[in-house]
């Protein structure tokens, strides 16, 4: 089943995936297309991150620093943590505050959340990168590539 094909508005049912600890499956497909290939280095970094859902952002930040990530404050608020994987890719975790949507629509970004992403190292400048970057891969909390906005917003405290 393609992600997000439940007929529900995207991003409004994230609790189930946030608490799961199933092993990442790099062969899964996204929306009928082959999922982006994940390098061994990316897979190792994803495994090391483990599930982030439900954790406090300060605990995640401490974990990232131990794992060798470097953090910067994002101009739009929140923080971006990156780690060069040594293969031309950079692993990134973004910690964002709740989106102030008017009116609230119940999307997953309306709570504090984290993102797991990888980007080509060439896209990274001063510890951050454009969300429109070519070659950016978004992951759900299980470490699977996903384009479902609900799944790539990982709820935090």
């Amino acid at each position, binding site marked *: 089943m393609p992600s997000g094909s439940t007929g529900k508005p995207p991003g409004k049912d994230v609790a189930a995936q946030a608490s799961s600890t199933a092993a990442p499956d790099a062969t899964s497909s996204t929306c009928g297309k082959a999922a982006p290939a994940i390098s061994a280095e990316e897979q190792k970094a994803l495994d090391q991150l483990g599930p982030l859902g439900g954790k406090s952002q300060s605990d995640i930040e401490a974990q990232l620093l131990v794992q060798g990530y470097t953090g910067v404050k994002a101009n739009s608020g929140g923080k971006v943590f990156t780690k060069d994987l040594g293969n031309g890719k950079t692993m990134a975790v973004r910690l964002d505050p709740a989106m102030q949507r008017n009116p609230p629509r119940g999307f997953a970004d309306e709570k504090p959340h984290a993102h797991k992403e990888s980007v080509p190292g060439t896209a990274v400048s001063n510890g951050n990168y454009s*969300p429109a970057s070519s070659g950016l891969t978004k992951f759900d909390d299980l470490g699977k590539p996903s384009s479902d906005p609900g799944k790539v917003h990982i709820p935090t405290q």
Partner: protein
Amino acid sequence: MANNRIELLAAHMSAGTREDGLAALDAGLQAGDEAPLSVDESHLLTQWLARERSAYAQAYLWRLLYSGPLLPEAVNLALRWLEELQLGHRGAALAYLRRHRPDLMPRLAEQFSRDSDAGVRYELAQFWLPTRPDEAVDLMIDALAGADHEGFDAMTFEICEYGKSTHLERLGKLDADAGGNSGFGRVAEALRSRLEGD
């Protein structure tokens, strides 16, 4: 004034400490762990924002003002901010006005209809969404290329929710023009999944 949280934060000598304090206060307010901001606190926030130069601090000052009470001086600051095309967070200024002075929006929507700032375009799209949803989605697609992470993610949700097959086609063309595997393509994938699930 002894319990004015903004006064206490502003008194810190370290910019980093002040910024971290603003972010923590914002998180506490969002979580309901902090009491809503008072008029006095919003008054100080407005003064602080008018002189603050850190983009990160500005982001949180706007967020805090947004969640506080209506303040005429903050409305004036937002209107001036919106006119300064070189400033960041112009979308946040418009968000403040859309929330606290919705009566101004028809005029502002007309005045800034051709604005290229992604944050401004997002807020204009929110204004148009109830009455002109197709145009609002097009406006958000226009804004994707220049959006920051927060804006890009917010628009992904809303394009997914309100987009139609014509928008999917447009996103596909933009992705192809960008060489493929671009941000447009990722939003297209999310919209395609929703449309196939309907």
